[in-house]
């Protein structure tokens, strides 16, 4: 059985992004890019399943420009077996990505798809659930534990108020949350090996998917900064300010 892991190239989580002067978007030139942190967790989980011989192959897929090859190589260095780049220079919104991934899933017939729970650029938290709908399979979003048996999985999800565990027949779509695992670092020998692993490029258009954006993004603004606060000398001053100035306690 094969696991498909969609990975997105995003601005590194340590970067504080800036809006472009004309407010048309976020300044991306010269900004450090990285694999979406949740997708790194998804890759790790898939590789562990293969190492435990529960699955035979881990295929990673990224939709985006040629630069996403770098992201795919990162995933290959972590232990994925093979990569697919669905190449497009267009702005790809989550629905378009889900439809592209559906087309890839039709070709690859994975037994399991593990997405990240959310991309840290658009913060949409949509693609995995939409892919599950398009594939007509069950979904387990925000997974913190995954147990696989022959034709089914049990997934523990982080929900408001606690945890819930679902059983799903395969194929299914899971989205990875922060506490699913701690991803490994790619070692230098593995980074070298990853350069020789197969990376196939498909044109998005060849998959027969219309990727035209459905949503228009207009003005981008930085939220108003909070007005500068003060440092208080001690607990007594804090309490007095909370009482008399902020009138909160």
């Amino acid at each position, binding site marked *: 059985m094969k696991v498909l892991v969609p990975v997105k190239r995003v*601005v590194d*989580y340590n970067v504080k*992004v800036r809006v472009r002067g004309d407010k048309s978007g*976020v300044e991306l030139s010269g900004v450090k890019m990285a694999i979406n942190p949740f997708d790194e967790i998804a890759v790790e989980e898939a590789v562990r399943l293969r190492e435990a011989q529960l699955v035979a192959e881990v295929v990673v897929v990224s939709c985006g420009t040629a630069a996403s090859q770098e992201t795919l190589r990162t995933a290959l260095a972590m232990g994925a077996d093979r990569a697919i780049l669905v190449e497009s220079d267009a702005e790809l919104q*989550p*629905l378009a990505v*889900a439809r592209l991934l559906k087309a890839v899933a039709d070709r690859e017939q994975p037994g399991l798809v593990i997405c990240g*729970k*959310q991309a*840290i650029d658009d*913060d*949409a*938290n*949509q*693609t*995995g*659930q*939409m*892919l*599950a*709908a*398009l594939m007509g*399979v*069950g*979904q387990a*979003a925000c997974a*913190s534990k995954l147990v696989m048996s022959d034709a089914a999985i049990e997934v523990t*999800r*982080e*929900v*408001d108020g*606690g*945890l*819930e*565990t*679902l*059983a*799903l027949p395969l194929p299914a779509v899971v989205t990875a*949350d*922060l*506490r699913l695992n701690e991803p490994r670092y790619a070692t230098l020998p593995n980074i070298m090996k990853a350069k020789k692993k197969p990376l196939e490029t498909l044109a998005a258009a060849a998959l027969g998917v219309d990727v035209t954006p*459905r*949503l*228009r*993004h*207009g*003005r*981008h603004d*930085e*939220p108003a900064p*909070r007005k500068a*606060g*003060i*440092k*208080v000398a001690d*607990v007594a001053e804090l309490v007095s*300010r909370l009482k008399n100035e*902020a009138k*909160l*306690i």
Partner: protein
Amino acid sequence: MKTLVIAEHDNLNLAGATRHAVTAAARLGGEVELLVAGECCAPVAGQAARLAGASRVIHVDAPIYRDQLAENLAALVVSLVKARACGNVVCASSAFGKNLTPRVAALLDVAPVSDVTQIFARGRYVRPIYAGNVLVSVESDEPVQVLTVRGTAFDAAGDGAAAPVEEGAAGADVGLSRLVSRAIRRSERPELGAAKIVVSGGRGLGSGENYQQLLAPLADRLGAALGASRAAVDAGYVPNDFQVGQTGKIVAPGLYVAVGISGAIQHLAGMKDSGVIVAINKDPDAPIFQVADYGLVGDLFELVPALTGSV
């Protein structure tokens, strides 16, 4: 155009989050109908019917909706949207709403919009991206607008005159997932998302015992909810649902007290719209002080008990 609000509940009580969703739904213009789907959930339908602004409640009662799983619910929502010609579907940006609404949208072949914080008109919204560091305006011409809305950005709808409750028919079981177990914590404290005061702890607390010994008494004194940073959750000090931030809960209480939290952007994303922020940290350069109205530099093991003793 009619809006369908998907009510969140546990078959007994309507979630507070749905009250905020109803306020947001009213901004879209047109009638607001609520779907209450569950098993033996008539009490919830009754509560939903009394929400100010609700024009009707559709109550669908069947065992397949008991556990609120996305596959069966999404199929039901889609059939209702079509049968009732709804132009909008709205749900809270909770774990429940984020799980369900994208599935609904994909089945309707429309692009959903997550975490809406402003509604100018139907199809014109603002939402945060990049951990709340950017607010983007979004325009959509989709025939059905599928939205999740942030509770912190819309007031809670109060109670009004009871709207009619209509019984709806259940769909077939799609059989794609099954609930094995659910461990939901019930707490005597206010709910994190709705609390007026939140006391949050980070890695600086050092252990779960310290967290409980230091922060619980302070929260008790203040009538506050307890929250945490990701680091505190990852280290096992507190359960996952305490996490505040980009990928945790979004809170905007009147007072947020951050104890032993450095203030990473992912944490700030979840709390920087709070009314007043207090930070207690031994590092004077910790980024949390850049958003704190009142910063107290020092050792939390001394300062927190002192604070608890004087409020």
